[in-house]
């Protein structure tokens, strides 16, 4: 947002002295909230797009928004089956149309039957439509080799973000040295840092090891929590697996070690698993935290408290705009669950189309159903394309002197490290900018490519990165990678 002279004029042109709501009287926690994925660089990108539309001449004809994990925006096609059922649910008269397959109609009828007044326009129960929660539980059981999942432990939500924030609201309390500390990886997805700032929680950083492919080291976890105990009360450990922005996929051993650590240190585990289908690298596989927990036996499975999160925004679906998601809570005190239901009831219910979509994700066409072949074809194609783009990205970036890129094992992003000449770092400081923001802004202005600076996710002091999505179509991605390579070389030259 362009700022006029703030002290004299409001956005709509009226003087603004003596207001009730000012930066000084505002909730002070909000001042610490930042969300780089939609931050200043994106705002500049939107402005440039406007300028282009108005005919401004630039060295590029479009802005490529590789800042946000939005697959459809980058041209990925929605899965046919999902959209057929959503159309049927939206306008049930289409159930009479013989162009829609029977299995799509069957699911639409079932979902509508579970809605108030047979309509997706009615409120649902705050915890989510019961039959959808049952389907989610069944999906989890199947995924985790038969380990039981109770629908009562499933809470549907508005995207995974909503559920994550809800759990943090329950967990954060205390004053001063007793204030709740929440462990989160560096780098991390900035929803976490934003939520912790908003709630006034203490953020406890544990560093992922860039030299070992962004792996998680228990020694580092222990260092972080021990240090944190001196100034807060650590109660929560957040893990994103597969990782965002780093894409690393945790090994089974690592997950076991983390669970053991959580038990030893009395920590509540939050397992953010929204990229669980996005695994590309050879030798890597997704292991759900819950599955590993239960395979570790009752000593752990009946004591460790945990919440796992999933969403319809990523994987092969990419349906970000529908805001579908859920969390499964494990070993939560029943009295706390009652309070949790009360808390989620304040916002009434998650969007019903998102709940319907989630039902399809956990209840996809089976081999004996008419839509199965097309569905599997589309799903496989999306995931294969992502795997190819992950490999391509790593390969190209590693050919650029000054850029090192870890393998993109999963998720949708690459987080390469960039070496910046000292002169550039100094120039950035002069301009009052963080060096990687300075770099990314220049890239945006010169090439029309929008990335997010690593400073938005956290990184070791003195290192610089950027996060780029691997979502543009392969041909476009090749061009983007080329342009970044050329830009980096130019930039390095200019500031040498």
């Amino acid at each position: 947002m362009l700022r006029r002279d703030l002290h004299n004029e409001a956005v709509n042109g009226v003087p603004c002295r003596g207001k009730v709501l000012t930066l000084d009287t505002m909730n002070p926690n909000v001042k610490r909230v930042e969300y780089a994925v939609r931050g200043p660089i994106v705002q500049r990108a939107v402005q440039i797009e406007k300028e282009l539309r108005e005919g401004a001449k630039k060295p590029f004809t479009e802005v490529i928004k590789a800042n946000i994990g939005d697959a459809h925006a980058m041209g990925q096609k929605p899965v046919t089956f999902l959209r057929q059922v959503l159309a049927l649910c939206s306008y049930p008269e289409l159930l009479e149309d013989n162009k829609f397959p029977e299995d799509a109609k069957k699911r639409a009828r079932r979902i509508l039957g579970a809605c108030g007044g047979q309509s997706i326009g009615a409120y649902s129960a705050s915890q989510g439509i019961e039959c959808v929660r049952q389907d989610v539980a069944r999906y989890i059981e199947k995924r985790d080799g038969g380990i039981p999942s109770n629908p009562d432990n499933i809470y549907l939500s508005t995207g995974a973000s909503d559920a994550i924030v809800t759990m943090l609201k329950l967990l954060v309390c205390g004053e001063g040295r007793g204030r709740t500390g929440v462990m989160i990886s560096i780098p991390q997805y900035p929803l976490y840092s934003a939520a912790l700032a908003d709630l006034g929680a203490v953020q406890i950083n544990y560093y992922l090891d860039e030299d070992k492919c962004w792996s998680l080291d228990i020694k580092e976890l222990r260092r972080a929590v021990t240090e944190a105990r001196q100034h807060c009360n650590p109660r929560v450990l957040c893990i994103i697996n597969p990782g965002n922005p780093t894409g690393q996929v945790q090994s089974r051993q690592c997950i076991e070690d983390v669970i053991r650590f959580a038990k030893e240190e009395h920590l509540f585990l939050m397992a953010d698993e929204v990229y669980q289908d996005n695994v590309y690298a050879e030798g890597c596989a997704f292991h759900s935290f819950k599955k590993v927990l239960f395979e570790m036996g009752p000593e752990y499975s009946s004591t460790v408290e945990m919440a796992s999160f999933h969403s319809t925004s990523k994987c092969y679906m990419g349906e970000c705009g529908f805001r579908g998601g859920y969390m499964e809570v494990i070993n939560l005190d029943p009295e706390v669950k009652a309070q949790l239901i009360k808390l989620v009831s304040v916002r009434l219910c998650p969007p019903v189309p998102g709940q319907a979509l989630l039902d399809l994700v956990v209840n996809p066409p089976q081999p004996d159903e008419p839509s199965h072949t097309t569905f599997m074809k589309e799903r496989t194609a999306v995931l294969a394309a992502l795997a190819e783009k992950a490999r391509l990205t790593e390969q190209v970036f590693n050919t650029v002197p000054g850029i090192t890129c870890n393998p993109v094992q999963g998720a949708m992003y690459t987080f390469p490290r960039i070496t910046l000449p000292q002169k550039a770092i100094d120039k950035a400081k002069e301009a009052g900018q963080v060096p990687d923001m300075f770099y990314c802004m220049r890239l945006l202005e010169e090439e029309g490519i929008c990335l997010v600076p690593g400073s938005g996710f956290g990184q070791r002091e003195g290192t610089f990165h950027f996060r780029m999505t691997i979502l543009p179509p392969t041909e476009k991605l090749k061009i983007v990678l080329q342009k970044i390579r050329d830009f980096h070389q130019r930039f390095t030259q200019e500031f040498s």
Partner: protein
Amino acid sequence: HRKWSERKVTIFTPMSDQQETGPTMRRLSQLESVVLWNRARQIKRELKQGVKKPYREVIDISWGDPQGGGIKPLSFVRQVLAACHYPQLLNSDKLPEDVRQRAERLLKECAGRSTGSYTATQGIPYIVKGISEFITRRDGGVPSFPNNIYISSGSHAVKTGVLTPVPCYDKVNMSIRELGGVTIPYYLHEDQGWELQIEELNRALESAKGVCNPVALYVMNPGNPTGSLPQRRSSFSWLMRVNDLEFVSYKKVLAEMGPPISETVELASFHSASKGLIGECGLRGGYVELVNVDPAVMEYIYKLFSTDSCASVPGQIALNLMTHPPQPGDPSYSLYNETTLIHNVRRVFEVLNSVPGFSCQPVEGGGFAFPRLHLPLNAIHKAKEAGMQPDEFYCVRLLEESGLLVNPGWNFEQKEGTSHFRMNIMIKEETLEGVLRRLVSFHTKFMKEFS
């Protein structure tokens, strides 16, 4: 090296232990009548299993959910949504021309022509602009700026105080407390049609002295649960004297009051696609318009909204269809039956006011009736014995014996010693007749039993 003695027990103590529980949970006081909802769920299950009762189904009029209550959605809205989600439908002639045109237009505004893409933080710009045009039209030309509008997925030391009406939609008070604020009740005057009286606002403000720092005044127009509309003169002339309060209300009156008030009073007005003619509660589409808010603060409002990514796209689309419905001459133009609501309101008023033990103020707006129960002392005592509020007790019995689920007045707060319940009137006319029949029959028996 771990100082066990110094550590508070965390995981192994139930989180309901007050010390370890987030303040959020403590502040969400027990407002909801858990007994009633649990019993309703149970009865629905029993009916499904074939248990014999004096009724065949539970009529749930406790929520403000028109479609949940059987009212059909608008065809135009649902056709456009279906076509947006599954654009193959645009290739056939099955959908009317205006539907296809609107869907095309909306898809053009979605990244990748998909309703599955994230949108701009404030909402799809085309839709946000449409909302500002709608507001300007509604307010007789008072300008509305798209930059001041945020679409959302439904509505979220020295302690901050917010003046809230009694009775009031319960989620408002819960939200304020969840955020650590304090609600300062001001009582609406039931005998004068739930009038908001200035003396009462002043009294409420006085009562807050030394307790909290009042910064905001919350007004619901039309009221929920009361259905009342504010007296134009009284509310706003008070504002002219106490103009350092933030006031949430109808923007037009503010503008008409002219400078300096119209340029200084900070206002947030909220609207949604859940009620009104469109009634799409499940899609979760709503918006807030901010007026006279400090631009530096606006930047942080943007940041806060951006952490939620964006509002659900189906909800955003519903808003567009609400602000720009089909016009006369369009193939889909057809009058929504507004007369249903007017009929329902009149029916409820005349029936309930003719039954001893009931009194009901005229419902001027909104989607609910909030009749008063004049319960016999015996009933009030019986309620106390059962550990329930009197209106809760009445509502539980009403559910058990007649299968009618309403929302006890206790959930909305009310003047001490009074009893009410809230019932949804955004239902079909035939449904309302059934409701009134069951209600009057039960009420007569109940009053006799406890006389």
